[in-house]
């Protein structure tokens, strides 16, 4: 009996230890990336709640930086282009922030639209600037320009999906079914067009649909959330994440939770 207990204790200790090790690894991985649950189960959500709110920017709003367009001016410079790493709207609202549930393990499926993600290259700019792509779903890249682009999605340790494909102006639509399908959740990952060095975007490969990207008004909405308590996280290109101190929200059946975030530019970045 005693020996059994001892064994159990040892086992527990080992588990604890390995957990610590795992956590350590996690910590090391990257504080600037999204956090995902280990597994996610799709099931029907009845009478789910809603989380919505606004993301605001705290700090001196930098002047809009006009991008230097050094080539293909006829196509690329028809409309003035600005750096999109920090887009602050009236009332200090922050665009292009991902707000998401970090630890949800079951809930709704992606809707039909989310399963057809499209990244457009229009007037030498990626649209959208931050793109959510479900894991295992094919990304379609459009070229609306009369110019050659190259879609360069950076490689990562997890997926090794460094995709770099030229998209000639004759090819309006390109499905990255072979190269651009992520097997694992991760991100956001940098996307670039090397031919037009200023063209940058971000892609997040996600395992569940509770991700929102803030619009011009800084608004986000997560709907059909099964009742429960969740960690609410955010990610922004310049302002970073709240991985260290996520907000805890309690969603009640049919209820709505309002949450406002105020982000600052990280000093270390």
């Amino acid at each position, binding site marked *: 009996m005693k020996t059994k207990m001892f064994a159990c204790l040892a086992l527990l200790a080992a588990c604890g230890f390995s957990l610590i090790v795992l956590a350590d690894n996690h910590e090391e991985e990257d504080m600037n990336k999204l956090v995902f649950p280990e597994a996610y189960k799709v099931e029907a959500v009845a009478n789910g709640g809603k989380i919505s709110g606004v993301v605001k920017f705290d700090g001196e709003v930098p002047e809009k930086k006009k991008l*230097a367009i*050094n*080539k293909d001016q006829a196509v690329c410079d028809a409309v003035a282009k600005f750096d999109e790493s920090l887009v602050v709207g009236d009332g200090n609202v922050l665009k292009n922030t991902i707000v998401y549930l970090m630890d949800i393990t079951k809930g709704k499926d992606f809707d039909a639209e989310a399963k057809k993600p499209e990244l457009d290259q229009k007037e030498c700019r990626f649209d959208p600037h931050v793109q959510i792509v479900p894991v295992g779903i*094919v990304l379609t890249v459009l070229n609306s320009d009369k110019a*050659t682009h*190259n*879609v*360069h999605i*950076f*490689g*990562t*340790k997890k997926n*090794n*999906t*460094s*995709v*770099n*494909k*030229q*998209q*000639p*102006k*004759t*090819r*309006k*639509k*390109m*499905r990255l*079914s*072979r*190269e651009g399908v992520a097997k694992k959740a991760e991100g956001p990952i940098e996307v670039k067009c*090397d*031919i*037009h*060095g*200023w063209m940058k975007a971000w892609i997040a490969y996600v395992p569940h649909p509770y991700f929102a990207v803030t619009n011009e008004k800084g608004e986000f909405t997560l709907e059909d959330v099964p009742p429960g308590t969740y960690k609410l996280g955010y990610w922004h290109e310049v302002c970073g994440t709240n991985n260290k101190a996520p907000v805890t929200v309690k969603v009640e059946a049919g209820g709505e939770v309002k949450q406002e975030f105020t982000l600052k530019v990280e000093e270390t970045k």
Partner: protein
Amino acid sequence: MRIRNFTLLLLILGLFFILPFVHAQGATEAQNIAEGKKVYDNSCAHCHGIEGRGDGSAAENLLPQPRDFTRGLYKIRSTESGQLPTDQDLFDIITEGMPGSSMPEWETALDADERWQVVAYIKTFYEGFKESETLPKEISLKGKIPYSKESIEIGKELYTQFACYECHGDEGRGDGTSAPTLTDEWDYKSWPANLHQNWNYRGGNDIDDIYKRFVGGIAGSAMPMFEDPAFGLSIEEAQRYTQLDNKGEMTDAEEEEYTQLEDKMANAFDILDLINAGEGDEEQKKFYEESMKTFYEKSWHLANYVKSLSPEKRPEAAIGKNSLRSQYVEDELPPMDDAVWDTLEESYFPLVGQVIIEPRQFNPTIDSVSVKSFYNDTEVAFLFIWDDRTHNTAEEENEDIGKTYEDAIAIQFPVKIPKGPTSPKPYFLWGGKLAVYLWQWQASAPEKTTELTAKGINNATEQEFQGDIETESAYSKGQYKLWVKRALETDDKKDLQLKPGVFVPIAFSLWDGANGDVGTKRVISSWYSFVLEPVPSVKRFIYPPIVALLSLGLLIGLRGFMQRRNTE
């Protein structure tokens, strides 16, 4: 007897074939990895890091940076885009090294077993090697098109169609409009290859190597996997499409033809997407196969064209009999654009980063400078030619590549020509105790050459009396040309005085402003020599006939002597 020999031969041959398998299976994977670690730690870790992250102690000053093995991103592969390299790829890179980078060949330092062990070990840094269930798909070299003039011509058109010029420039010197902003995935500056200097191609310069880079891309760099811009069109149709596309106005008939071609491509791209997704019916599959065949053909033509841009091998340095020899002309010296310059062979001076005095240049971007020269009774003219991907004429703050400076060149001579081989020369880096005489040209003043005297790299002064050095220059398609003309002899004691037949030490300093070159940070050469090649002496027409006549006389004399002796 014959039969026995034959069996023996077969046996030996058979052994050779079996050997690789025995070798592969003889040692277990674990043993290989353990052995590989030893070799790796001793030979590779100082650049690639103990943990394979490309962060060894020597990595700091290297560009391209040593490969980070934990990312599983390998630039030089024989596999398709997005795939891991084969073991053979890794083995080949270790064996042959990567020209134009700091990765040397390891064939001389490690035996084949050791190199295979290293391959086994570096694969452990990235889990993807273990996880991938299927072998990486290799690029097929089937349907290779032989190197020929016709193929090069077709390739040349495809170079434009495939938009290679965006980065590599109109003539391929890596001077495309996108070149200054290119970075790799590690956010390091990377320059597109200068296709006229294929001795710097990291993955080798065979036509097969070039072809693989098109089809597979260079992972982690800006070089994409190629997409046929006219997929589904034949080479002729593609040519026609480009022709129409470049036309300002089209007739109705042309308009219709154009739309048809566009539809055909759109349709073909749809089929391509289907097949890539593993869909599509038999007919579509057949169409896809056909179109891919055309695409591969095009890629071979393109590879042939790219191959044709470089000389067959790197030119030999201007040492010994290759020394720079100024050719005599009786008349006026030819100006910069005179076609007569093309009749002269270039003297090639390889250059190296200045790593002797801070601030140093560890990653030079200028490979070499080529020089030609003519002289007449009173003057000498030089034509200096070098490749530089960017034309920088001033100090500027550049968001993408940091601060840039103006491009420049300085040509260095001693003030006094050494009397004999043992008499001292000035220090090759702009002199020391003995002074050097310099011609300095800067891109901001394209028609001016300044005379300097220097007694050290940081101790140069403009000469008080600036002599008359006529200067012309041009920058075009990634290449500088500088033409200077000066009197052979001047009144200034600080100037170099030139006489035909005397070998004069010469050396170079060049600055690529876009690469941060300024001051001591530059590319340099060691001392070479040049000579005003003396007009061949008239003696060459006098002595040989005399010798010929003498020898004939000798023959006749000998015959006479023999005859006389016979009759005696």
